[in-house]
């Protein structure tokens, strides 16, 4: 019964006996709250995000601080999760790494979402040859295994910066969202309220923003949430192979990459960042699935 949310009791038990209208977002939130997994996901994410944001203040050591007297040390009071092959504190790098991995995932998902909305909206709203051209391009992009393409480009540029990784991930993954939004727009634009808006001379841009986009907000939010998780996995994959974030910058992927030389003798070095990543992705997936069920209880939009 948190503030600002209309609960069923409040609605039904209304003094005047009227049923108060609820916006689709309020309905969705009501359904979201009832999913135990989704709430668990939110709690896990809250912890992970808090730890990542606070990394500089709570990390016991600096991210690249080297302790030459304890190299590949097992967990101890000084180094709670041990140290890596350069004598850096694993726990501290885990916290800083989460910060960077999360930032990359969220930033890439933002780019992917914006590009996806842009092309999807234009293709769906205008139709005709614009739609045809954009959708053929989408087909083409989907025919490529995107990780292959990313790896080739990363190898060409002899190591890419953090921003490069973010841009590449975002710019090679917008196609699914474009497909969803285009499909929705194609049917939405036939509806009376769009016709009405058009008949009073509303400019196209405003129809798209004010009348059409709010109707697909569910699909956008769900895709965004799941994309963050996908991009965190992709970052880890690229960095693991040595073609992602420059070495030295701690990310969970880079930590896994650094563990490659001695994970068989020092399993903890590989277990820790991988487990953190798995839990984080799990949390995003819980929330994403919860949101999907909340926005679309019948599962029509897949």
């Amino acid at each position, binding site marked *: 019964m948190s503030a600002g949310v209309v609960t069923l009791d409040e609605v039904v038990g209304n003094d005047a006996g009227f049923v108060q209208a609820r916006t689709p977002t309020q309905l969705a939130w009501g359904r979201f709250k009832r999913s135990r997994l989704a709430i668990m996901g939110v709690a896990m994410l809250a912890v992970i995000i808090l730890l990542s944001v606070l990394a500089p203040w709570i990390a016991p050591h600096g991210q690249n601080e080297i302790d030459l007297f304890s190299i590949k040390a097992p967990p101890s009071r000084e180094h709670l999760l041990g140290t890596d092959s350069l004598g850096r504190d694993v726990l501290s790098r885990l916290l800083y790494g989460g910060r960077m991995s999360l930032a990359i995932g969220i930033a890439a998902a933002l780019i992917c979402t914006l590009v996806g909305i842009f092309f999807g909206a234009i293709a769906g709203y205008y139709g005709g040859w614009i739609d045809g051209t954009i959708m053929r391009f989408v087909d*083409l992009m989907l025919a490529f295994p995107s990780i292959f393409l990313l790896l080739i480009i990363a190898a060409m540029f002899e190591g890419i910066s953090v921003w490069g990784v973010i841009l590449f991930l975002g710019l090679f993954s917008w196609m699914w969202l474009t497909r969803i939004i285009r499909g929705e727009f194609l049917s939405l634009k036939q509806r009376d309220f769009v016709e009405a808006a058009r008949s009073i001379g509303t400019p196209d841009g405003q129809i798209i923003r004010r009348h059409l986009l709010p109707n697909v907000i569910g699909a956008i939010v769900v895709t965004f949430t799941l994309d963050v998780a996908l991009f965190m996995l992709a970052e880890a994959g690229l960095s*693991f192979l040595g073609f992602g974030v420059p070495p030295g910058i701690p990310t969970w992927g880079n930590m896994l990459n650094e563990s490659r030389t001695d994970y068989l003798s020092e399993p903890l070095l590989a277990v820790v960042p991988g487990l953190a990543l798995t839990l984080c992705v799990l949390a995003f997936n819980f929330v994403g699935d919860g949101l999907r069920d909340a926005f679309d209880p019948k599962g029509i939009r897949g």
Partner: protein
Amino acid sequence: MSRFLIRRLLGAIPLLFGVAVISFMLMQVAPGGPDATYARSPRMTDERLQALREKMGLDQSIPVQFVKWIQNLLRGDLGSSYVQNRPVTQVIQDAFPNTLLLVTVGLILALVFALLFGVLAAVNPYGWFDNVTALISYFGLAMPVFWFGLMLQILFSVKLGWLPSSGLHDPQNPGVLDTLEHLVLPAVTLAIGSIAVWSRYIRSSTIETLQHDYVRTARAKGLSDRSVLSRHVLRNSLTSFITVAAIDIPLYLTGVVFIETVFSLPGMGRLFYDSLTRRDYPVLMGILMFSATLIIIGNLIADLIYAKLDPRVSFE
């Protein structure tokens, strides 16, 4: 049927052409390349470099090079590897069977376990088995594939010593059984993601099918649970599953890169990784073209099977 097939095949041509164009453009903007490799050699003179460039056709204009490249492509000639000095097609031919083996074993594992988990979970929704498989598939989806591979290596090769951690053959002890032993961990790693997604998918479509009238009829006429499931339910839940499985083909290809690198298997994925580190662009482009073709063909086959299994789907 054949008209549908022809139309789909024709539709694939511009797609493949687009893939070829993008591959070629990538090669053009790529730094390094053959002349850079040879230019680094200390005994290289300007004249010899020029002669080499002429020999490789690098002195011609980009459109001319492109037309030549496409012509060669149509003849099945993907150029030759900078590093291995062999035709790319040969390099790929050597690596592909190993990957095919890995993917086949992985696919079989994935199908068997996904069907088993999915149907058993559907028989008693929200029972303990359903909940356990739900949890497993949530984890299976969330784990980075290669990390799961590392964990399997640590557990089964190092701690327990049950299975070999890398390679495809043991030179001391070759044989089919030995190869299969080497394939267990990589194949499980490859399959885990699909088991996660597919078992959930089969579960929900089976639950849906179980509610149909004809299932009740089949039960009413006295068929056993087993034959109701296998003859009436499974076939229907499988039809929609085919399309889901086809979407996963690209996932398999990317999975192969990581898994073959982690387990040191001499397949296409490992070849891709090695070519990346050595900047062997012709091989990279060859693999890119090859896998794009596989994806397109895979989707086509999925459509065909789908139509074959579901009589309601028309080809027109």
